[in-house]
């Protein structure tokens, strides 16, 4: 039986493989998404460290630079400061100081000068020096002129103070005080902070109070002045700014990591879905193909079963028919002898009644035997012939496919010369296939009975006349000698060791039952050639 190898790759197995592959792909994608989210987080952590460090250094430098230039200023303009100190209420001198400071510190916000004990020399000037500032100044002096920067409001806005002692270095005459707007800090933060990150200055003594952000003071932020515990937990990096009450922290956007994780998960999901869809599609195709293959196999098996059944029926029919022919001859002779005997007795004057009876009975019994044979033949006759229009070339191809392996294994060259565009024949496909198969088998066997090495099996089809198709099977075997040619179609005649002598007899019966003819070309030596004809279906 062809195609009987086990089904290693049934659809169910394909399904299992596909499932395993999908799970693996899913795991890989999940791992990749998790990994790239991790990388993203690490990158931003690094970014936070870099920007916090950079900004902190810059702020520290900014503060110390302000102090340094104020020291230089206080030293350079000591005479002017002393002039102010000697006459603090002199508006002209103060105005000179203001414009000088303006020249050196264009961004300054407030200006004052104190005496050694920290008392402000012009206390009511534009309300710029308020309570908080005065307290700072005292703290500054008490702490030995050490600076503690932070921002605080006055009626005009937020600012931070920078103070240096003025006068002799070892014996300062008081404090030179300038306040600056937080914008100069905000500028630094804004410049350095990365997208998706906020650099914030927080008060260290009042943890989580926002001092300055890239946008300016805390009031610019339109939010709570303090950080929630959630935000505190989100801080990536923090560093203290020397000489200040500030910690510089990097707070990433709430959405930064979540959206990245979502993006990665989404990407993985898209890839997975695409993969799964393609996989499913392939699986479906495979399963459809598999189904078709199984169906074709089933059909082939059914066809084979039909062929075998028809074969059995034909063998039975042909045997009965052959037996009938063989038996009918002696039966006929018996019956005729009896009748002849009866007629001879009839001419006698004295008829022996018992002999007449015996001969009559013998004749009747032989008739009865003939009737039995006829009945058996009717019973095994071609009762199941189903005629319909068939494509003879397709039937030839079908038959050839059965001997395909045998023919290839044995090294027989098969030549098909099938005419194109043949009309349909009216016949029972299975029976005709049986005939062709018989002829093919005979041809192959014949070619192996001789010693000839060129073994060519030729099958051709053609339109013999307007309403007749002719199929010819030709081999390169030893051919048919006169004796063989005479009896080759007889029932029970065979030249094979284990043949029954039915194949050609059956074939001829089949073809004749179809109204066609099956014959062989005479002549030994040139190979055997068999032809059969079939009627063309009426157009």
């Amino acid at each position, binding site marked *: 039986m062809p195609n009987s190898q086990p089904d290693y790759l049934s659809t169910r197995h394909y399904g299992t493989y596909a499932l395993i592959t999908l799970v693996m792909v899913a795991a890989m994608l999940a791992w990749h998404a998790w990994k790239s989210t991790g990388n993203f987080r690490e990158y931003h952590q690094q970014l936070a460290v870099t920007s916090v460090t950079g900004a902190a250094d810059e702020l520290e430098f900014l503060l110390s630079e302000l102090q340094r230039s104020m020291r230089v200023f206080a030293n350079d303009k000591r005479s002017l400061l002393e002039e102010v100190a000697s006459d603090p209420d002199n508006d002209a001198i103060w105005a000179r100081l203001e414009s000088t400071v303006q020249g050196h510190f264009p961004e300054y916000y407030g200006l004052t000068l104190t005496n050694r004990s920290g008392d402000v020399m012009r206390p009511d000037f534009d309300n710029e020096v308020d309570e908080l500032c005065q307290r700072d100044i005292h703290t500054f002096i008490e702490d030995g002129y050490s600076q503690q920067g932070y921002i605080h409001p006055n009626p005009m806005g937020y600012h931070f103070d920078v103070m240096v002692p003025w006068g002799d270095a070892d014996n300062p005459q008081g404090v030179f005080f300038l306040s600056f707007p937080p914008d100069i800090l905000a500028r630094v933060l804004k410049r350095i902070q990365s997208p998706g990150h906020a650099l914030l200055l927080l008060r260290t003594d009042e943890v989580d109070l926002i001092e300055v952000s890239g946008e300016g003071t805390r009031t610019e932020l339109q939010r709570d002045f303090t950080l929630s515990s959630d935000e505190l937990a989100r801080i990536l990096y923090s560093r203290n700014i020397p000489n200040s009450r500030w910690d510089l922290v990097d707070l990433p956007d709430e959405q930064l990591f979540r959206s990245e994780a979502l993006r990665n998960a989404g990407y993985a999901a898209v890839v997975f879905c695409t993969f799964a869809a393609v996989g499913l599609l392939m699986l479906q195709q495979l399963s459809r193909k598999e189904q078709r293959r199984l169906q074709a196999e089933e059909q082939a098996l059914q066809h084979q079963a039909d062929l075998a059944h028809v074969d059995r029926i034909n063998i039975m029919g042909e045997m009965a028919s052959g037996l*009938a022919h063989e038996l009918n001859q002696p039966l006929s*002779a018996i019956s005729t002898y009896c*009748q002849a005997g009866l*007629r001879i007795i009839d001419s006698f004057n004295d008829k022996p009644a018992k002999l007449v009876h015996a001969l009559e009975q013998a004749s009747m019994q032989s008739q009865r*035997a003939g009737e039995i044979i006829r009945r058996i033949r009717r019973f095994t006759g071609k009762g199941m012939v189903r005629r319909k229009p068939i494509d003879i070339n397709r039937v030839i191809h079908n038959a050839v496919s059965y001997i395909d392996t045998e023919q290839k294994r044995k090294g027989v060259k098969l030549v098909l010369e099938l005419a194109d565009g043949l009309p349909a024949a009216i016949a029972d496909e299975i029976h005709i296939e049986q005939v062709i198969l018989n002829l093919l088998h005979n041809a192959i066997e014949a070619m192996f009975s001789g010693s000839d090495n060129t073994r060519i099996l030729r099958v051709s089809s053609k339109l013999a006349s307007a309403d007749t198709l002719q199929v010819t099977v030709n081999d390169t075997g030893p051919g048919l000698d006169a004796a063989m040619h005479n009896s080759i179609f007889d029932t029970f005649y065979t030249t094979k060791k284990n043949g029954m002598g039915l194949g050609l007899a059956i074939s001829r019966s089949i073809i*004749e039952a179809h109204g066609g003819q099956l014959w062989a070309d005479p002549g030994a030596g040139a190979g055997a050639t068999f032809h059969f004809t079939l009627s063309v279906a009426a157009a």
Partner: protein
Amino acid sequence: MTVQQPTVFLVDDDDAVRDALELLLDSTGLRTAAYPSAAAFLENYDAGHPGCLVLDIRMPAMSGMELQAVLAENSVNIPIIFLSGHGNVPMSARAFRSGAVDFLEKPFDESVLLERIEEAIQLDQSNRDALARQTEASTRVASLTAREREVMLLIVAGHANKEIARKLKLSIRTIETHRGHIMEKTGAQSLADLIELSHASGTR
């Protein structure tokens, strides 16, 4: 011409069947000539001999059907009764199409066979009589002159002397003379005789 007794020609390759049939036919007083093959029959057969042919359809070398075809080719019109050890419908149909008288399946009822043989011999006889008449008529008609044949055809076609004279542009008297010669030469006793004779000769 001596009248030959009709003979039943028997061709069957089976010795027993042939022998039995010979015995049977002999017992009924029929003359028989039996042959084991178509070739043997053809060798000895004289187509002039009346009778019928009882022929086995399946024989080696030349089958009954083939013999039938050979006889047809040689215009031998002997009635044939086929015997078949194993007849089938297409085969018998073909045999009948080719002019077989009957087709009997072995073992057959002998009385039926004898009946058929009787009919076949009668058929052969009437075929031969018809043929003889035709030959006879043909010879007689052949003795007519061309003009007389022309006149005869018109007479047979039912025309009166006057019409014939007008058609052939001859006088009625001349036609009457022709008519006399025609009746004399063909030996026809009446117009009916002449019509039959003309048909039998196949003259047109």
